[in-house]
């Protein structure tokens, strides 16, 4: 373990400890805000697995979010399953859907893949709007939870899972396969890598997190309908957060989610108009000035990170 990864690990552990204790001393508003940050941190971490590490620009993540949300809702409402069991089933179904769709779609490359995933998501939205079991276009009311702090911890769980995935993935055998496929699929194949199973692994991991977030989201908001959960906005936000923080890095997507959600909250309070312009402008600026995210900017300049590390080392003596 290098000093750098040790430092980051220690930092992450400290942040986790603060996060666990946070609802004890923070007010309801801030707990709700943090729950939303974790939710998008998990989505961005999930997108990073397929879009960042694997290089497959998925725009259909909301398909899995919707599957997770509806499975959880239906099982709680109609089968009276406890939330945890319904959520587990939602995550599992999202994974199954990803394996099925991934087998078909992951043969495509680049923007063909992006469009196909978006199409898949829109198809599911139409299906959900027309099935009796989902309540169709009028949506579905879930049972109301007795307390809301548990949602904070559920979402914290998903973001921790996402960050752990992002940290372990690149150091694993599968992570090497994924990186090689992203960099040069033809070269990867003649070195013994069968690409499709590894791409499906990344896609299904992404789907598991989107599905879990969807299930928690449904119970948290107590109402879901097709346009709310099968919503491309989830994917777009996850993409922008990942690009902001640094695609293909372990903690970049989480950092992107924290920065963006806080900025977004402040701007919404100042002006609804500004808040709408903000996302579009940010995407343009990111693509032009920092296409590989803040992590790369920091690495290149070295300034802030090195300064903090020097500070830490000085204080140890």
């Amino acid at each position: 373990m290098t000093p750098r990864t040790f430092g980051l690990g220690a930092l992450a552990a400290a942040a986790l400890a603060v996060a666990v204790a946070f609802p004890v001393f923070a007010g309801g508003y801030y707990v709700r805000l943090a729950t939303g940050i974790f939710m998008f941190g998990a989505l961005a971490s999930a997108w990073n697995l397929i879009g960042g590490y694997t290089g497959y620009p998925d725009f259909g993540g909301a398909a899995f979010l919707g599957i997770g949300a509806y499975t959880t809702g239906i099982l709680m409402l109609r089968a009276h399953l406890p939330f945890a069991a319904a959520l587990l089933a939602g995550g599992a179904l999202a994974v199954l859907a990803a394996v099925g769709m991934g087998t078909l779609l992951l043969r495509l490359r680049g923007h063909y893949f992006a469009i196909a995933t978006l199409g898949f998501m829109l198809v599911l939205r139409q299906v959900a709007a027309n099935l009796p079991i989902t309540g169709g276009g009028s949506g579905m009311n879930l049972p109301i939870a007795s307390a809301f702090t548990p949602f904070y911890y559920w979402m914290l769980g998903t973001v921790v899972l996402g960050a752990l995935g992002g940290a372990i993935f690149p150091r694993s055998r599968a992570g090497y396969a994924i990186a090689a496929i992203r960099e040069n699929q033809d070269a990867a194949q003649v070195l013994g890598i069968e690409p499709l199973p590894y791409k499906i692994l990344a896609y299904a991991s992404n789907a598991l997190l989107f599905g879990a977030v969807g299930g928690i989201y449904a119970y948290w908001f107590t109402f879901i309908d097709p346009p709310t959960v099968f919503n491309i906005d989830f994917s777009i936000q996850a993409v922008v957060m990942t690009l902001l923080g640094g695609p293909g890095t372990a903690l970049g997507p989480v950092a992107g989610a924290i920065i963006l959600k806080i900025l977004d909250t402040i701007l919404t309070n100042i002006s609804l108009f500004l808040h709408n312009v903000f996302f579009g402008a940010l995407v343009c600026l990111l693509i032009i000035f920092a296409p590989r995210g803040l992590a790369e900017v920091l690495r290149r300049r070295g300034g802030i990170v090195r300064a903090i590390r020097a500070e830490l080392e000085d204080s140890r003596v």
Partner: protein
Amino acid sequence: MPLLRAGAVTKLFGRLVAVDRVDLVIDAGEIVGLIGPNGAGKTTLVNLITGIEPPTSGTLVFDGTTLAGLRPAAIARLGIARTFQIAQPFRNMTVRQNVAVPALFRANPAAGVGQALGEAGAILDTVGLGPKREFSARALTTPDLRRLELAKALALRPRLLLLDEVMAGLTPAEVDAEIAMLRRVNAQGITLLVIEHVLRAVMGLSHRVVVLHHGRKIADGPPARVVEDPGVIAAYLGNRRPAGRSG
């Protein structure tokens, strides 16, 4: 004992006959040179052997296993490695990570990432890239990228190694170093098929030379005899390019 046996292998691209009923036997331990003018079908033949493209007809058998229908990854795991004419590095990975990839995915893979990286370091030392192991592959020069291609192929622990113009663009001194390295590789028991424009290199290195012209095999024998073959002289040496020029 033939390691690779190609029987009447043919590849058509539309109406173009890229490889035309080529018979080829490569014995274990041999160094076979494969030469021919531009467009003779050399790289296509390598693509057929490594499963990048399926042959239109004919048979390919490697150590008793028919290669027809096998995907490139499966053929690689059987023990056939190749280098590309234009280097195909994993650009945003370090040199050592590049070489760790095949070590993790060959038939008897390294036990884990740590072991694969250790092994990659040792292989990089043998090809002279040891000092640059932590460089990003993006930062390598053309000769270094060639060495990286070779290192990746070796990390697959192949029995047959197909080298597609590894010496193109190298200086004469670099060519000599490359020849010495390929001899060492062969001495480890790895059979070599060397596709080359640099005739001096092929003639000096190969036990046997095969000449392709318009997709057909027009000569197959010891280097000294092949260079005197009137058909070869007419087809290939008659309009040879300056040695060292890449194609």
